[in-house]
């Protein structure tokens, strides 16, 4: 059976979403596996969003916002960076492969970088296969 990964992207409205829009209007070719969720800021990305995405069967997650120093709200992404660093360590400890989660900064003018983030993440997740394939969503623990 053809399997293709489901990847959820949490992006900030001001940089990455606009950058992704630019990638689209520039007709850049991207893998269709990424579902974009637009949020006001990367600091709006509660670590629980990412945990929840994996719980509900996502195979990969992208989190992206403005480059540090360029946050629309001045300091949002600095707080987010600390949170993601700890979440990154936690995911590693829990056995979620490093390649399933991509944290990146993509500015509004970096349509090419967004294309690269999407394609590289999709390729990495494809190489890893489905996340926890042995266990379906909602299946009770034995």
């Amino acid at each position, binding site marked *: 059976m053809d399997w293709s990964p489901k990847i959820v992207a949490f992006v900030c409205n001001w940089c990455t979403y606009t950058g992704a829009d630019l990638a689209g209007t520039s007709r850049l070719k991207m893998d269709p596996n990424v579902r974009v969720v637009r949020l006001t800021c990367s600091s709006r990305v509660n670590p*629980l969003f990412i*945990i929840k995405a994996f719980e509900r069967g996502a195979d990969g997650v992208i989190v992206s916002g403005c480059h540090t120093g360029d946050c629309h709200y001045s300091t949002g992404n600095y707080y987010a960076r600390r949170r*993601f*660093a700890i979440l990154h360590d*936690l995911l590693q400890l829990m*056995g979620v492969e490093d390649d399933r989660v991509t*944290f990146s900064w993509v500015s509004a003018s970096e349509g090419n970088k967004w294309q690269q*983030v999407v394609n590289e993440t999709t390729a990495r997740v494809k190489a890893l296969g489905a996340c*926890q394939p042995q266990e379906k969503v909602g*299946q009770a623990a034995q």
Partner: protein
Amino acid sequence: MKALQELASKLLSDGTVKVVIGYEQGPRGVRPAFITDPAQTSKLIFDRRCTQNLATYLNPRRKHIAALGKAGVVVKGCDARAVAGLIREQQITRDSVVIIAVRCGGVLEDPTSTAELTAETTSPRCGHCQVREPKLHDHLLGELPPAPPVNPRRTEQIAALEKMSAAERMQYWNAQLERCVRCHACREACPMCFCVECRAERALPQWVDPSPTARANRAWTMMRVMHQAGRCVDCMECERACPSNIPLGLLARYIADSVEQRYGYKATDDPGVPAPLGVFRTDDGEEFIR
């Protein structure tokens, strides 16, 4: 412990506090005691079996204890960090509690045990302890006993986990977490879990599936660890409270190490030090960002 009993009696008699939260001998080992009558203070004890973190009873969510009135609480160094955490996060004010600190020489992992402190019986948290004589206190009792033996169990487990591949770690945690019955005892025992409404109990939107499925257990545990990141005082009450013996203290220690390594923050009994995830530096490391 005579000094403790006398102090508690004095504080209760002169009305400084309405209740003293301490330790007493129960039918099955040492248990928390809530003393409101000065005549009852002779029940109070403090020794190596006093493992429980009593700061958890200062949590304003525990209305039946708050209703007793101003509390005096017996704390060890590790518990003093939890009191500091509650003050830092504005759950209690410094003058709303009388802190009776006791110099601590380590505690047993199991308060129902009567064993001596050895490398096997001492709580693994005591090996990391740097606050055997807490600075945050109103009264400081006892002489400083010698440092406890170090229980290497947790350090060894973390080292073993670090050697595993991602798939092996996934398997390890699946095996551990499939025993979780979602009783949320870890949350109830935790001094730093004081939300009025827990995310895990919110139905609309439902953040975490309340049923004990493998995926939901994983999400619940990860959520709790993330909420405790940079706030956890490493008292290991979650692990002690867990009826399924899930090594929750392992996660706590790993994240505490990660916070310390990245941001130089150690759990402290100084309420003035900001929580590391509530502040930032422009030059924080971002090696994990692609």
